[in-house]
């Protein structure tokens, strides 16, 4: 019979604890460095002019990225506008028929959709919309992003709807309200926080997506608000500028990165606030 002494075992225990701490902190360093770098480089570039003016020509200094900001907002609006009704409808359907074959298929589809690489979104939407319309467009980019948001909103909405008690539904039906009114006036408002959380999560997920936009929204050096014309977007600008040889463009790319990260960060904070504040309690 062989046995390690307690001393040795405790030493092993401490060694393991230190290893865990060591590796965990080691990984946080480059990650913090990454964040710090974006903020340091970005803040140096940011000013009011940067946000409201158009880019300057090659070789000139100054200029801004207003066209990308407007483009990103436009794309997000299209994506939200297209995906929210469908996502909420699908979530309500699953919630109404939880055991139904179609519902199970939808759940499976949602899982699969979430796993589709974003570049695939890009080429499929290119085939669906850009080719027939013979034009890159904000609409195509918005559709690609909208499809990426679908699974996130469906999941979040479904989770909240599950928590709305059956008795609330029955109470409304017992008052003689027809079913659709029960859904619209009672169930959806009760599940609003989940829908909102889903939208916020979805937006923060798509705001930085580049790959699905490469062959859909395409990018545009000019300000555009026409749905059927190509638009620029922050991530597209970062991609194009960061791989360019001009130092001035690289500076602008840092500024754009800073704005994008800050935007995502603020969305995250709002999401947390919504989750906390509006959490439904029954």
């Amino acid at each position: 019979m062989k046995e390690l002494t307690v001393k040795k075992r405790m030493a092993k225990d401490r060694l393991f604890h230190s290893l865990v701490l060591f590796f965990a902190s080691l990984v946080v360093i480059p990650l913090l460095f990454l964040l710090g770098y974006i903020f340091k480089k970005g803040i140096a570039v940011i000013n009011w002019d940067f946000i409201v003016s158009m880019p300057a020509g090659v070789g000139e200094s100054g200029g801004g990225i207003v066209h990308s900001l407007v483009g990103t907002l436009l794309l997000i609006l299209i994506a939200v506008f297209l995906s929210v009704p469908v996502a909420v409808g699908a979530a309500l359907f699953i919630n109404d028929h939880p055991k139904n074959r179609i519902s199970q298929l939808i759940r499976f589809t949602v899982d699969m959709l979430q796993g589709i690489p974003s570049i695939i979104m890009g080429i499929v939407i290119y085939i669906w919309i850009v080719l027939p319309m013979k034009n890159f467009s904000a609409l195509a980019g918005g559709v690609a992003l909208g499809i990426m948001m679908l699974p996130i909103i469906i999941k979040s909405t479904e989770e909240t709807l599950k928590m709305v008690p059956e008795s609330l539904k029955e109470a409304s039906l017992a008052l003689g309200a027809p079913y659709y009114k029960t859904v619209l006036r009672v169930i959806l408002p009760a599940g609003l926080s989940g829908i909102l959380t889903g939208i916020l999560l979805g937006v923060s997920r798509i705001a930085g997506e580049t790959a699905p936009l490469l062959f859909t929204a395409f990018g545009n050096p000019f300000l555009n608000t026409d749905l059927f014309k190509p638009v620029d977007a922050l991530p597209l600008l970062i991609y194009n500028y960061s791989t360019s040889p001009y130092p001035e463009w690289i500076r602008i790319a840092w500024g754009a990165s800073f704005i994008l990260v800050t935007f995502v960060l603020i969305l995250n904070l709002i999401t947390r606030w919504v989750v906390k504040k509006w959490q439904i309690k029954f």
Partner: protein
Amino acid sequence: MSASPLKVHKVKEKGFSAFLLFSGTLVLMVLGAFFVTLVLQSFPLFRETGLKFFTTSRWVPMENAFSVLPFIAGTLMTSFLSILIAFPFSMALSILLGEYIKTGPFAAAFKSVTELLAGIPSVIYGFWGIMILMPLVQSLQIKLGVIPYGVGVLTASLILSLMIIPYAASLGRDVISMVPGDLKEAAYAMGATRFEVVAHIILPYARSGITAGFFLALGRAVGETMAVTMLIGNSNFIPKGIFSPANTMASVIANEFGEADGMHTTALIAVGLVLMLLTGIINSIGKSIMKRFQVGG
């Protein structure tokens, strides 16, 4: 003659249900249509060249030679290498946050940082990689006496591992914190140290969940596009080593689709089809193992 209110209700009721059914089936159809589109659009390639797509190993668009193998090799190499690099770090983070410090300001700070990093767009990771990582790898290559490309399989894998660590660690933390407290207590009650509880109870119990996390992280790595495209060096040959430039399936599409036409476009769509099938398979394996872990324990 106006319809009775009851009738109006009935029509609205029907319309509403129809809308829900429509939304649900639309979601289904989107996925189906994705698949069908990729199959139909890549079909001409297979009609023309048969299975050469899978049996040869050259991708030279000018000569109409299209093989997916260099990109499968590039994809598998970068994703496995990145998982290998990420593994010790994400395990350490999972164990730390799932067992050692479950609550408190430190855990909350760790959680916020990892959540924030998971939200940073891929293109920014790529940008940072070009600025910071590429020169680092270059100086390493000069020291080792290999051609200092700076970009290549290793650089792409490093940035990929940074990107998947937060995701893998949060999956791991969830899995580890699901290990029932009474099992840990039983082990402590027999005189086990914390390390022994982790090694003999927590990790074996969570093994299938951790495996699932591995697959899900792999699925992410395989499909990741922008950061890899910016750092892998974009070469259409099967990589010879970790310093070689290469292309993944996602990065070759991102790189060439914009300028492609004719059979080149078709071939890129076929690459997309293979990529979609591969990620689909990896993710389904991961999801099904995870479901079994959550139900059965």
